[in-house]
């Protein structure tokens, strides 16, 4: 925790169920920072609150896949059981029940967070049992273990899950091997990893940092959760290899707050490392999707609001504390470590010409076997649907809320940088679904997660969500439909990718499934 403002505030929130104004002033004065900066943090991150929350703070995961599994009904049931209104702390201070964006449990939803810890596989019975435990004031640590069990659901293992044990390549040899293997960033953008590492190594700076982005907040994505659980050692090895290559002494693993249940596991794995030359610190997020954007993530590690920076300069030259920094995704570091241990030539042989190797896909929604699937790049959507046991499929959302919505005519398309680049979220909708619901869910998501820095995103996501609210309630107009399409051109003027892609899925759904929206328009 040390002197990092965000980590201090998370600890204060945990201890007092809120961050009192007095604490804001004290943290500011202790760290020699302006009060406005600390206040800015508290009012930016969803998991921090200035108002006291209940002894039990419950946040229901509000992803579209949770909705499809009945989360909205369970939410009302929980509120009813406890006699609370959404977001309002019960007058005896027992509980606060609210909603949060996707918690990364889409393969075993509906899910919620109780005092920051995930409870998945919710049913009416489980909600009732949890309500009783809260009324009896039994602390979550004394709740049945099974409530907190998180399955990994690895359905298809490939190259990444193999136990590569070859002699470890390092430095220039490793960079060459990664280049030859064709390793590109697994977060979706696909920047050549060796090039990134070399740029960081060659950039001037008195210090260098290695940062792993485990802030996967894209709705429907949960591969980092599984990699952190099963491959943390490999991940830390990848970060250490990067550190030795670029000359970094310190690294950070930025984990989304929703995965707090992994803390003990990760701390133990870190403690087991023996590397005096490279220290890795855990940095917890606190409920902000935007912090998955690499420059916002760096701001967050610096203890600021997660506002994406003006780029250029890019993190490789001007990163954490203004020093050259490599920011890579969990899967990328794991792949780099596997390539270093002899996996390079096989990696090269897999995938397509422009997308070598494999990709972990997080599959959820209407299918018999949701979970993690590792495929060689180039796999078709229809293959994925067959393997996960999805029938009668209407639509597939690839890439999360910021991704593309495909109809049945497009299921021949392929997962790869040349066709459908994605961080790995695949959400399946069968023919019983109303795509208007998905459009509403995504538009609300962006309005909630916009950082508020730039005009088009701050206001545009709100206008989009309002239009979708009206359409969902059956009081939309043709104007709303036109507006949603027109907003795309303006959102493209946004400061970062969040705003730029905020209406993509909704626009796709309107175009491909117009009949789903007709009932909402008068």
């Amino acid at each position, binding site marked *: 925790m040390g002197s990092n403002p965000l980590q201090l505030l998370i600890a204060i929130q945990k201890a007092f169920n809120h961050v009192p104004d007095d604490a804001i*002033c004290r943290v500011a004065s202790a760290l020699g920072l*302006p*009060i*406005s*900066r600390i*206040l*800015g943090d508290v*009012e*930016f*991150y*969803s998991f921090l609150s200035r108002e006291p929350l209940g002894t039990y703070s419950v946040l229901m995961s509000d992803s579209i896949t949770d909705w499809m599994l009945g989360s909205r009904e369970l939410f009302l049931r929980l509120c009813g059981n406890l006699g609370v209104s959404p977001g309002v702390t019960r007058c005896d201070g027992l509980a606060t029940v609210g909603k949060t964006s996707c918690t990364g449990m889409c393969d075993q939803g509906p899910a919620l967070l109780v005092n920051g810890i995930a409870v998945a596989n919710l049913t009416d019975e489980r909600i009732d049992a949890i309500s009783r435990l809260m009324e009896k004031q039994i602390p979550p640590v004394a709740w049945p273990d099974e409530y907190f069990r998180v399955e990994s659901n690895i359905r298809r293992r490939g190259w990444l899950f193999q136990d590569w044990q070859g002699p470890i390549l390092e430095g220039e040899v490793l960079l060459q091997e990664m280049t030859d293997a064709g390793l590109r960033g697994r977060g979706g953008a696909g920047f050549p990893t060796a090039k990134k590492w070399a740029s960081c190594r060659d950039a001037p700076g008195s210090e260098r940092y290695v940062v792993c982005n485990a802030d996967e907040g894209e709705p429907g994505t949960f591969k980092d959760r599984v990699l952190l659980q099963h491959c943390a050692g490999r991940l830390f090895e990848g970060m250490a290899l990067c550190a030795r290559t670029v000359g970094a002494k310190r690294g950070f693993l930025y984990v989304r707050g929703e995965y707090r249940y992994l803390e003990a596991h990760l701390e133990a794995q870190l403690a087991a490392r023996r590397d005096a030359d490279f220290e890795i610190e855990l940095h917890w997020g606190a409920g*902000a999707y935007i912090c998955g954007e690499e420059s916002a993530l760096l701001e967050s590690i610096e203890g600021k*609001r997660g506002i994406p920076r*003006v780029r*250029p300069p890019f993190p490789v030259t001007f990163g954490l504390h203004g020093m050259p920094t490599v920011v890579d995704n969990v899967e990328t570091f794991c792949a780099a470590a596997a390539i270093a241990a002899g996996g390079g030539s096989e990696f090269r042989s897999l995938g397509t010409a422009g997308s070598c190797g494999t990709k972990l896909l997080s599959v959820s929604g209407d299918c018999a076997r949701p979970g993690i699937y590792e495929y060689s790049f180039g796999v078709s959507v229809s293959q994925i649907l067959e393997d996960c046991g999805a029938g009668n499929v209407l639509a597939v959302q690839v890439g999360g809320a910021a991704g593309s919505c495909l109809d049945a005519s497009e299921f021949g398309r392929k997962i790869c940088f040349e066709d459908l680049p994605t961080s790995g979220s695949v959400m399946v909708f069968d023919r019983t679904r109303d795509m208007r619901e998905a459009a509403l869910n995504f538009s609300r998501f962006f*309005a*909630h*997660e*916009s*950082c*508020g*820095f*730039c*005009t*088009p995103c*701050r*206001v*545009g*996501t*709100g*206008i989009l969500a*309002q239009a979708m609210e009206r359409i969902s309630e059956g009081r939309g107009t043709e104007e709303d439909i036109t507006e949603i399409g*027109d907003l795309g*051109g*303006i959102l*493209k*003027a*946004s*400061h970062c990718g969040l705003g730029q892609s905020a209406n993509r899925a909704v626009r796709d759904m309107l175009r491909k499934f117009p009949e789903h929206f007709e009932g909402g328009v008068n």
Partner: protein
Amino acid sequence: MKTVSLDGAVVPFAEGQTVMECALAANISIPHLCFLPGFLPHGSCRLCTVKIDGRLASACTQPAMAGQHVEIDTEELRQVRLSLLRMLFVEGNHYCPACEKSGSCRLQKAAYDEGMLDLHYRPWYPKRKMDASHPDVLIDRDRCIFCELCVKASRDVDGKNIFGISGRGIDTHLVVNSKSGLLADTDISAQDRAVEVCPVGAILVKGRGFEIPIGKRLYD
């Protein structure tokens, strides 16, 4: 000498200059709000959105690069600017006739320049807290456009560091650096650059009431 093309005009630039800076030097106008010479570019209002080699970018933050083809005055970009202005108007409460800043307001001027005749979007009518605690300076947060010029001016020019931005998304708001959060508990003065630099009527000097006659105001 390296050059960029701005709407077809070939314009030289110095290393390190942004597209906005080289346009200003060449007397080519790119509409802007949060950008002000002398302050670090911010890139939040996006009014200076231009198309650089086919991609939208804010001219104030984009470094000029040799051979760049920059479009400024196109129908598509006029529509983007118009929409951005409308968005700024509907998210706040901008009632020009009743605002002290009217006639000297950069948001209002930009709207006139771009030919904005209606709000188009439904207004949001925010109710953000007003701060009238200080004897000489007032904050009307419903007019703030989050350009952060006051934040920078107070910190870097006045040396007082009185302002900050807090919140997220549509709840973004201007905050004051004092224990109470009130302007009265700061050492702000009506002569501060932070007060003068506000492009809209969010930070106003008290004790004045439309003292400049219509026709003589900054942008009349």
